[in-house]
């Protein structure tokens, strides 16, 4: 647990560096479209509440595990993964729409920093989905053992962390640009 916590903090520093890049470059649109011209909040607001709810349900999974309830544990992990998949679907839809409208990662420094920051968070969530699916299979096969307990604890900590990072992405990249 301690080792994973240290990983999370280093991941925080990685995100911090990309946030710093975004903070410096977000206005450098090279005469092209500004972030605020193209961003649509509706999908992003839905993403925010979906990810927040999934953070809560991953907590409920841990509570089921602490009660020794294997079905509840797998069920809540499945709910969490489905919400995570919905989040990714909305994000990919947003990216596809933006690229269709002509803004890509190569458009300008401001769009490069946008896609890098938001995309890096999306990749973390996607990785978490694969990881969660693997843990669900393990629990289905081996039940709640000290080893699977530790794994569930770690993946739920990772999931809470991704929600925290998203709060800052939502605030700094979306709300403060649109404002």
């Amino acid at each position, binding site marked *: 647990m301690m080792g994973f916590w240290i990983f999370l903090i280093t991941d925080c520093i990685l995100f911090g560096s990309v946030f710093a890049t975004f903070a410096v470059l977000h206005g450098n649109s090279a005469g092209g479209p500004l972030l605020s011209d193209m961003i649509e909040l509706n999908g992003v607001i839905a993403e925010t509440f979906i990810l927040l709810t999934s953070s809560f349900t991953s*907590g409920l999974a841990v509570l089921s595990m602490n009660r020794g309830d294997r079905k509840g544990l797998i069920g809540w992990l499945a709910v969490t993964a489905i919400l995570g998949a919905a989040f990714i679907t909305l994000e990919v839809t947003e990216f596809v729409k933006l690229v269709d409208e002509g803004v890509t990662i190569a458009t300008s420094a401001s769009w490069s920093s946008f896609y890098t920051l938001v995309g890096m968070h999306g990749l973390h969530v996607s990785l978490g989905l694969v990881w969660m699916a693997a843990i669900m299979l393990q629990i289905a096969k081996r039940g709640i053992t000290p080893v699977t307990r530790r794994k569930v604890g770690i993946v739920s900590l990772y999931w809470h962390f991704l929600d925290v990072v998203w709060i800052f992405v939502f605030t700094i990249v979306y*709300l403060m640009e649109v404002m």
Partner: protein
Amino acid sequence: MAHQHDEHESHGSLKSYVIGFLLSLVLTAIPLIVVLNDLMEGTSAKVLLLGSAVLQFVVQLFYFMHLKEEKKPRYNLAVLLLGIAIVLTIVAGSIWIMTYNKVA
């Protein structure tokens, strides 16, 4: 299963998760309402938005990630504080340097 507790295991209760979830919902809704209705602008709006985000970070650390329940010595807290110091240095330093590096 065995009832022995792992030292670093989380002991969250349903109550703490529900409180954390509700507080997070409120702290997400406040900046959203302010931005969608143009209630504030300029520096005060930025302070409110960032303040809500930081508060939500603290709420989730306590209610979801159980930072408060950590036993002494509080290594996790120490690593977190070091991480925050590094992140703030990188972000604030980058903004500071690049503000004076712009070609007018």
